[in-house]
């Protein structure tokens, strides 16, 4: 290729997005959420007005009593037991049942963020209801005999607000958006309508108490989830797919096509996910342009950034500074780093993908890193591993060492064989001037990858041509389960040949290198995280009843 792909392609792209023009996938606040937020604000204005003056309270109460008068004045003997039962179930049982089912379901399906948002939603609903009820001090309907269960002031209705909130949050937490959530919302509407009617029939709430409660119950979780767990970034999926993988059809697929054309001059004909099983930190894509040329792209979103932060925090707590790295502050930084590392590795003579450029999908939230597609390449675990391939793999590590680099994620999914070439991909974790320990682990991981499709004796023999026996001994002294990427760890376990132990037998004896690194920072962080978790659990347990879960 005479020119780089970057130069070749960017010539056809627009110079820049004109000021004021929206990005390919603008961050949009859901219109439905805006409508409910507006309704909530409307109620807030009414509450403030009622707080400041008796006149609106009188007018609203008179209208309320006019509306509910025909209902309470015509209570039917055959209907009353059912209405009382619905009032009792809705007030005491429904919210804990729905809330706990949703919470356990979210944790079992690993939607931890959604589980936290469910609890926060209920806490905020309880907080709003508490604040408003104590300011408005509205009694139960006057002139009406209450025949149902109730507690405290009436406006807004606490049980209606909490049950609505639990149902809406459960839908947002557990139900896939297409096509089921629509049905969930319809069922929720019917349930709340029936419960609301029972509240009026039993005389415990005014109509406006029910409507205000329902508004709070819908608006709080809807807005919270839309802002902190938007469906586009944190979709609810089942069936074994990684939560890291984003849907590239619909608006995002259109945005990718538009962005590729505008920013790289590539007219995209097809975008499909590829190699999802080997990727957990991004959504890898195969992009075909109208001329049939194929490109590879990794889609990074803020969900990946947060996963990366959680992963690093967990590693720091469990092992100290095992990864020798800081978290990324933004998706932009994350993708810039990977793009930069591709250039650095290629400059060091390491055969990784040629970068084509970064494509902005949503500013600061979603980017594509576009590279060449390794046509015809297969993962090393599916290829024949010859002596030449083994030598190339070991030479790759030698080059990394020589250039002062570490790949840090050497596993079968990232070592590709294209014809007779061995190529390394996914350099997101690569590091300049890593610790000697980290470089040693790279060597051990590469030798394990190569040995999975050959023999440890052959790999060890070939390694001695490039590394000293002491280097290899240090590599395996530094390696153990946690230093192996999870795919490699799993493959080694299933291989059954005890590869790690065999390499240790082949190499000179050396004491294991300690992984645990204790520092004041780690101790402080552990104590801090422990305190926060204990505090949050204590608050949660102490307020189970208040947020409707008990």
């Amino acid at each position: 290729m005479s020119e780089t792909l970057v130069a070749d392609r960017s010539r056809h792209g627009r110079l820049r997005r004109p000021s004021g023009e929206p990005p390919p996938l603008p961050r949009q606040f859901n219109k439905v959420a805006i409508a409910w937020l507006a309704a909530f604000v409307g109620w807030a204005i009414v509450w403030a007005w009622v707080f400041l003056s008796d006149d609106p309270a009188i007018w609203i109460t008179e209208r309320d009593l006019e509306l509910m008068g025909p209902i309470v004045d015509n209570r039917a003997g055959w209907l009353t037991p059912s209405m009382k039962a619905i009032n009792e179930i809705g007030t005491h049982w429904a919210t804990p049942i729905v809330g706990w089912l949703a919470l356990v379901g979210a944790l079992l399906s690993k939607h931890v963020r959604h589980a936290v948002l469910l609890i926060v939603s209920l806490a905020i609903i309880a907080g709003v209801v508490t604040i408003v009820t104590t300011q408005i001090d509205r009694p139960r309907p006057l002139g009406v005999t209450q025949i149902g269960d109730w507690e405290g002031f009436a406006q807004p209705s606490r049980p209606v607000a909490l049950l609505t909130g639990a149902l809406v949050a459960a839908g947002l937490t557990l139900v896939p958006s297409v096509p089921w959530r629509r049905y969930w919302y319809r069922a929720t509407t019917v349930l709340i309508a029936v419960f609301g009617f029972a509240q009026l029939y039993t005389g415990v709430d005014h109509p406006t108490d029910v409507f205000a409660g329902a508004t709070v119950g819908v608006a709080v979780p809807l807005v919270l989830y839309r802002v902190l767990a938007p469906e586009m970034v944190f979709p609810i999926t089942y069936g074994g797919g990684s939560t890291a993988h984003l849907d590239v059809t619909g608006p995002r697929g259109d945005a990718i096509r538009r962005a590729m054309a505008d920013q790289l001059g590539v007219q995209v004909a097809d975008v499909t996910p590829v190699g999802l099983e080997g990727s957990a930190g991004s959504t890898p894509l195969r992009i075909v342009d109208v001329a049939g040329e194929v490109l590879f792209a990794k889609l990074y979103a803020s969900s990946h950034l947060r996963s990366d932060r959680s992963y690093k925090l967990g590693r720091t707590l469990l092992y100290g500074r095992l990864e020798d790295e800081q978290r990324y502050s933004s998706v932009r930084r994350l993708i810039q780093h990977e793009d930069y590392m591709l250039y650095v590795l290629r400059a060091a003579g390491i055969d990784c993908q040629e970068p084509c450029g970064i494509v902005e999908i949503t500013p600061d939230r979603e980017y594509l890193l576009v590279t060449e597609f390794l046509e015809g390449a297969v993962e090393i675990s599916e290829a024949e591993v010859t002596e030449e391939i083994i030598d190339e793999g070991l030479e790759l590590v030698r080059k990394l060492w020589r250039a002062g680099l570490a790949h840090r994620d050497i596993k079968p999914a990232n070592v590709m064989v294209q014809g007779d070439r061995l190529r390394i991909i996914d350099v997101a974790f690569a590091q300049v001037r890593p610790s000697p320990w980290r470089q040693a682990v790279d060597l051990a991981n590469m030798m394990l990858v190569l040995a999975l499709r050959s023999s440890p004796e052959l790999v060890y023999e070939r390694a001695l041509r490039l590394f000293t026996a002491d280097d290899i001994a240090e590599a395996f002294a530094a390696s153990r389960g946690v230093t192996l990427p999870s795919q490699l760890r799993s493959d080694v376990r299933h291989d059954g040949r005890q590869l790690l132990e065999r390499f240790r037998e082949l190499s000179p004896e050396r004491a294991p290198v300690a992984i645990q690194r204790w520092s004041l920072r780690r101790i402080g962080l552990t104590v801090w995280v422990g305190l926060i978790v204990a505090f949050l659990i204590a608050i949660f347990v102490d307020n189970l009843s208040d947020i409707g879960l008990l």
Partner: protein
Amino acid sequence: MSTRRHLARHRRLARVGAASAVLLVAAACSVELATPPPGCAGGSGLIAAQSVPTAEQIPCFEDLPEGWSFATVNVNQNGTVVRLDSDRAGTTAATLRFEENCDLGAAVAVPSNVDEVERFDFIERLEPSFRAQTYYVFDGGCVTLEFDFDRGASATESVALDDIVAFVSRQDLNESIRESFIDEEL
């Protein structure tokens, strides 16, 4: 607007949002005090009256004596329960229950300050800790003021509470509603 300023604005909004959420969550954490006690000059008097619809008299609290504070207030269809803490007599040292009926047991009648209300007292024990009940009985309802002091706390602490429980008649409450709110009654 530059991206940096745009981002800064988003961060500020996020901080304000987070702070608001924390405040609301904190409010939720103190939800047990969501209902104020039935005060003689406001509070939850109306719903306390609704909690015992048969009662002709509704209990209400004057200002608490020094050292006493309201712990929890629960008002529902079964009645009203107010728990009080004392810095000397202990946590939940006094509990007021407003219900339709109460079991007077071995309590003896004593003079009452309110015409329509009869008073009965029963001292269960003085040592090792003071435990006693005062009953206020009236048409359609009853108020029990139960003392359960910590060991060593003086029984005289209960005397301070004698004067803070007052009563307002349902008729007066209804007249007040008609005059200042709407033409309805409890």
